[in-house]
């Protein structure tokens, strides 16, 4: 049985300007010890998906409209707050994007590190502190025994994210959700933080959901990948499938944006246009207005759902474009002046 089985998760925000369907029918599953990457642009619903699983969506205006998220046989979306608190921090932990604001500046690191431990397990303070020091050493914080009693402002950004990782893993959870753990850090620190997450995951056998918009990180870390766009999944499969046999035009466009895969001296590729406004109904494929492939029809009807192929690789085929050619050929063909204008007008 899978550790986490999410089916048809739907989360909306009921704002004054309308209903924003941030997550609109997302399904995936995750086994013990596995790493799942969720990639997509800002606003694609990847963070809201994970906050919904932890029921950390601010309500109101947010609301989980439907779906199930079975974690070890229990539905995270319908369980009581009391049951939920027994899972949060004990069996599922979370690391957040901005380490500068995710630690409480009024409390010592030690207090925050041992909090989950003391809440969920019957340990005395001294044992807990010793565990906290060990946890800090595991994530590479020097002089841990001394620094454990410092306040967050006495640490740098990278060090704080290490503290966050130590804090999330101190209870040895079954699942770690990392919401863009490296986005707010500078490039030299990013790789270190990813290495630490990977190392700790191997030590503890924790399953990881990694939310990111950095495809490079996904390629090096994840077993499985979900590609999200406009609140839905566009493509999912193993990391190899999504990277080497990408089917969906969006996934292929995303790959084109990875700077290190581009020819030196060439202008960096960006997908033209903006992500869709999910507060308005979307007909057909959400990516259609930005899709570089030759169009074969007008988008209509419901948004296409994921279709599974024989090898487990899924993608949402809209049927309104001809995606047979590799993206390089398509982009090169589009690169004539009148075609660029057309792409601009499509927005």
């Amino acid at each position, binding site marked *: 049985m899978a550790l986490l089985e999410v089916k048809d998760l739907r989360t909306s925000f009921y704002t004054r300007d309308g209903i924003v369907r941030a997550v609109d029918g997302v399904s995936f599953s995750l086994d013990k010890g596995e790493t799942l990457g969720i990639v997509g642009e800002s606003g694609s619903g990847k963070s809201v998906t994970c906050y919904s699983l932890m029921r950390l969506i601010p309500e109101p205006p947010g609301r989980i409209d439907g779906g199930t998220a079975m974690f070890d046989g229990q539905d995270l979306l319908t369980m009581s707050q009391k049951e939920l608190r027994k899972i*949060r921090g004990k069996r599922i932990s979370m690391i957040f994007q901005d380490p500068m604001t*995710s630690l409480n500046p*009024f409390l*010592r690191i030690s207090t925050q590190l041992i909090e*989950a431990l003391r809440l969920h397990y019957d340990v005395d303070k001294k044992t807990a502190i010793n565990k906290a020091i060990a946890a800090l050493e595991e994530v590479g914080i020097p002089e841990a025994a001394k620094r454990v009693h410092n306040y967050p402002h006495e640490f740098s950004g990278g060090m704080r994210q290490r503290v966050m990782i130590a804090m999330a893993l101190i209870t040895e959870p079954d699942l770690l959700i990392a919401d863009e753990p490296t986005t707010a850090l500078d490039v030299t620190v990013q790789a270190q933080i990813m290495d630490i997450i990977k190392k700790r995951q191997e030590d503890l056998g924790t399953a990881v959901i990694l939310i990111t918009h950095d495809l490079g990180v996904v390629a090096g870390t994840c077993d499985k990948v979900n590609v999200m766009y406009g609140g839905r999944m566009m493509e999912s499969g193993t990391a190899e499938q999504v990277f080497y046999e990408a089917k969906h035009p969006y996934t292929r466009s995303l790959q084109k944006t990875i700077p290190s895969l581009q020819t030196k001296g060439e202008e960096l590729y960006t997908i033209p246009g903006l992500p869709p406004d999910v507060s308005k109904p979307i007909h057909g494929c959400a990516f259609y207005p930005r899709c570089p492939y030759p169009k074969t029809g007008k988008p209509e009807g419901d948004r296409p759902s994921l279709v599974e192929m024989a090898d487990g690789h899924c993608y949402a085929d809209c049927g309104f474009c001809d995606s047979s050619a590799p993206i390089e050929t398509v982009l090169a063909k589009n690169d004539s002046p009148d075609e660029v204008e057309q792409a601009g007008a499509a927005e």
Partner: protein
Amino acid sequence: MAKFITLRFLQGILVLLGIYAVTFFLVAATPGSPFSSERAIQPEILAQIEAFYGYDKPTSERFIVSLGNILHGDFGPSAVYANRSVTDIIAESFPVSLKLGSISLAIALLLGIPAGILAAVKKNTWLDYVPMSTAMAGICLPTFVMGPLLALVFGLIFAVLPVAGWFGPEFVVLPSATLGLYYAAYFARLTRGGMLEMLNQDWVRTARAKGVPERTIVWKHCLKGGLIPAITFLGPALAGIISGSFVVETIFQVPGLGQWFVKGALNRDDFLILGLTVLFASLIVLMNLLVDIAQVALNPRLKYD
């Protein structure tokens, strides 16, 4: 920490010296003297009186002498009330004002801060709307309206509390309620704002993700930071309660220091004015020092040197 306190203490003394000098020279520059009255006094007698109180010497010399006296704890005689020193007057009235002030402050804190916390935690429910609209009304009503209103309701209509005088515990209720409720309203609004800011922080989400119960989030994670605006207001609030007590003491006929401030100014009782100014200024400086210390204690990010 010791360095920070010493520094602030020395600053406070400088402030007090400044206040004393300004008050002294302002009073000295005011036309008239404590000894002028409607009845003509023979010049020889006036000269004798002036010599007795030291007014025959130049202002600068009087300043040095009186400063020396005050540093020794001697506020001088009253220039108007024979045989009474300023110290006597303070010793007699200050305990009354202190009692009124501290009970008012206690009412303000004990009512305002819990109301603010409750309103923030139960945001946008009737537990937020009811106390907060009451607080808004409380802020809008000045004490000279609130005082007579309370006197009217509890003193005359229900006739359960005395409206004037200072003879027992029941006489404390209306004046301290008048003063305290006004500041309770301020504290409630400040605490609500401070707590709401804390409850919206990212690290509250972190705490929730760790499985921390809401109650612990409020008390352990948010209270320290949420109280900072209220603590900051404590200094000005004390100043307000002291000056507000002039009005309230007059409304309810409380024999506190407020009446002496007014009498001193009207009678040109120079020594009394100076003595009371120094007393009130010291209280406010001391309170602000305590507030500074409390802030450093609450907020680890503040550096104290």
